[in-house]
Structures are given as C-alpha cells and as structure tokens.
C-alpha cells in the first residue's frame, strides 16, 4: 500500500480538482455548477487526508481539516441551493447565461 507514491494520489486529486473546474467553467445549469464545486472540495479533502497519512501521520490535522471542509461544504451547498431556488422563483430559470442582468 505504501508502494503507491504520494504523487499518484496527488495526481488523482489534482485531476479531480480540474475536472470540477472544467465543469464549473462549462456547465450552464447552476445546479451542475454546484456539483462541480463539490468535486473541487472533494479533491481538496483527498489532498488533506493523503498528506496527513503519508507525510505527517503523528497528528490528525489533515483529517480534521477534511472533516470541517465536509461540514462547511454541506452548509455552503445548502445555502447555494436555497439561493438557486429563490433565483428560480425570480427568473424561472437556473441557467447561468440567463442571469446576466448586471454587467459592465
């Protein structure tokens, strides 16, 4: 198990991070954008846990951090969804391209 180099894990987490970012950049639906953000946060979680496990196993900083991230992410998602729902009520759409009233 320790034969898996840390960089491989980091490769995966980084890749996940950028997949999420890709989704954020391209998805027009706000909910899918939110899902992309969840991916990003997950990749960070992986990072924390992996660093904790591989590099600094004597303390649990990374693990705790990831726990808090999960919590915060949940809260964030809840608020975001509430906002999206309200947006839907006001705009009858959750397409990000259609919510560009304010610009320039």
């Amino acid at each position, binding site marked *: 198990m320790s034969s898996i180099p840390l960089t491989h894990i980091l490769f995966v987490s980084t890749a996940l991070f950028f997949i999420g970012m890709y989704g954020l950049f391209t998805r027009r639906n706000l909910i899918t*954008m939110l899902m992309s*953000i969840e991916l990003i946060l997950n990749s*960070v979680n992986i*990072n*924390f846990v992996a660093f904790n496990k591989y590099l*600094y196993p004597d303390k649990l900083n990374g693990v705790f*951090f990831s726990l808090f991230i999960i919590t915060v992410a949940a809260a964030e998602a809840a608020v975001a969804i509430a906002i999206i729902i309200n*947006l839907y009520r006001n705009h009858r759409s959750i397409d990000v391209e259609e*919510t560009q009233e304010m610009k320039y």
Partner: protein
Amino acid sequence: MLIDFIILMKQELIITVIIFILLLLKIGTDISNEKILNLANGLLLLNLAAGFVGNQQGMLFNEMFLTNPLIVLEKNILSLGTLIVSLQSADWLKKHDHVPEFYILLLCTLLGMFFMISAGNLLMFYIGLELSSIPLAAMANFDLGKRRSSEAAMKFIMSSAFASGLLLFGISLVYGATGTLTFSEMAGHITGGSLQVFAFVLLLSGFAFKISVVPFHLWTADVYEGAPVAVTSWLSVISKGSVLFAFVSVLYTVFKPMAATWYNMLFVLSVLTILIGNLFAIRQNNIKRFLAFSSIAQIGFILVGITGSSQLATASVVYFVLIYVFSNLAAFGVVALVSAVTGREQVSDYKGFYKTNPVLSWVLTIALFSLAGVPPTAGFFGKFFLLMSGAGKGNYVLITIAALNMIISFYYYLRIVKAIFMDANEQPIERLIIPAYAKLAMVICIVGIIVTGLAGYVYDYIHSLSFGF
C-alpha cells in the same frame, strides 16, 4: 482558564449571546420590527462599548485563537462599522419580514470575521472566512422578490465557493509542504520554493477574492449592485476590512520569509487593481456599482500600503480601514436612504440633489471627498499614510502610478459631486426626512471623517499597537 477565556474572547462571546437572544426572540415572541431594531442596536452599542474594556494579549485553544490590543482594536472597528450599518439599514429593515434573521446572519458573519482575525491557525482562519461569507450570500438575497438580488446572491455564492475551493487547495498544499496548520509553526517552514509560491498564490487569491483585488474582483460590482444597500455597505466595508486585517497579519507573520516574492506580486496586483477599478468606475451609472469599483480602487491603494511591510504599513492599513468605514458608510448611508425611500440608484438621479436635500448632499459629498482623499477629510490622511508606507520601500514607480491614478479616481468622485451640485434636473429626488437612526449614523460618520484625520492621536494610537518587519 475560564477567566482568560471570557476576557480574551469577550467580543466573540458577546456576539454569540446577542445572536442567541435574537434567535430566542424570533422563535419565542411576536415582536415588532421597531423593537427588534432598537434592541439590536442597543446590544450592538453594548458590544462596542465592551470592546474597549480590558484589552489583553493572549492565546487560547492551542493557538487557534490569538488576541492582542491591535486585534481588539480591529474588532472594535468592525463592531463600530456594524453598528453604523445597523443604524443605516433600520429604515430598510422596518419594512422587511425577516429582521431578526437579518441580524442573526449579520452577526454570524461578524463572528466569523472576529474568528478569522484572531485565527492562529489555518483551520480557524478557513472556518472564520466561511462563516463570514456563507451567511453573506444569504444576506445578499434578502430582497427576496428582486431579480437582481437573487442574481447577486448567486454570483456571490458561486464565486465564493469557487474561491474557497482554490483557497483550500492552496491550504492543502501549504499543509503538505509544512506539515502544520498553525501560523507560528508554519513560518519556520516557509522557504519560497516554487510549490510554496504556488500555494501562496492560491491563498492570496482567496484573500484577494474577498477584498476584490483585480483580477479576482469580478463578482464585486454585480453583487454590490444587486444586493440590498445594507448588505452592499457591509460587504464593501466590514467584510473587506476584516479580510484586510487578517491578510496583513498572515502576510507579515507567516509569509515573512517570502517577502521579496509577495512584494512584487502585490506591486503588480495593486497597480492592476487601482487601474482597473478606476477605469471601470469612470463609466458607472448605478451608484452602488460605482461605489463598488471605487472600493476596488481603494483596495489597490491599500495594497500599496501593505507593500510597505513596516509598522507604519500595518498602522496605515488599520487606520485607513477605520477611515474607510466612516467614509464609505457615510456614502452608503445616503445611498441607502435614497434607495429605501425612492428606489432610485442611478447617478443621474442625484442631479439637483443639493436643491432638495442640502444636508444629505453635504454628507454624501464629504464622504466622497474622503474617499477621494481630499483634505481636511480623514481620507486624505489615510491615503497619504498608505502611500507613504508604500514609499518606504523606495519603489517610487509604484507610488507615482498610484498618485497619478488619484487623478482618475478624483474624476469619478467629482462626477457625483457635479451631479449633486451642478447639474439641473427636472425631477430631482424629493425632499427626504432623515430617520433618527440614519441621522445618528451620519453624524457618527461625519464626525469620524473629520476627527479621525485631524486628530493625530488616533493614528499614533494605532501605530503604537502595530507591528511590522
């Protein structure tokens, strides 16, 4: 231990108590908006007063919570700002259905800010940051039926989530590179290698997002425009101020070994910020949007000050934020009042404002002058000291650019003044009756604008608490 706990964390505790009082009120009784407003403002005043009692230095919870007189002062500045915002939003809130919720959210963000400023640890910092921004997104949506309000909230929460994703990625890399989350331990591991620079940039972007540094500023204007004025003023002043405080202390303590790198970064960013902020502000027609871009430009000036990285710089930044609280809130106070009564927010609506509302006009004008940095308002002193501390590094190119940009910023502030005093208008904003709370807020702001600058004591005091390297 318990005494320490109570004394050192007094401000956070008081805020928490207030939150719960309001929560209980909300759940338990049917109480009129006016009463809640009175109560909330009273409690906030109490909180502010308590902030000045018994300043101590110390840390709690294994360096997760630090405090010292400067931090207490910073919190007091934020409390003061909160009080002013609360007073100003009274008129808007009276008509609103969710007054206690507004206060709860507001105070939660304030609490988050307090923890963020006091954080001695990246985890606390992160949580504080999120606590100060997630409820804000909800607050941005507080004009529930308004399309722009919900669009603003959406933009804010999306940008903010994305920014915190990047910030977290940065934090994870920092954690990976240093093995610790505690600031004091971290500093020893900072070497300025390329990974650390990358991680630093990610962290920086997190800060930069909150204080709207170009190119991380794009959300600002839209959110400011769409959000209710009270939230906008809160965002532009208190939220920014708190992140700035945290930013300075993180930069000066944790990343001190990388000073050469971040100095140049801030150089580039500050120039960009001032320039872009100014260029965009020139063109704005919505006064809130205009204030958004102007506040971006202000942040550019603050960055110039931060590059100074001396005791002077810290003091100047804190001092400027204090002044900025007064000036920007004075401006927003008028805008809020006008917006609450008439719903008009365009610059052109302010044409002929002086004819109908001389007092409000003067308040707005003085506030704008302070933002522009015109003596004898405090803004002049604030900007002067910021630029001076920036100049302390000997980088006069930066200072020259900043100073020349003052001309542009001057232009757009004067544009508003021109509209108020000089332009004719068929339908000027009608004569407004200034409610007592708003009046109080304005008086506080104007007195602040005038006294903070001219009384050298304020700056001296802040300087004596400051640090630098």
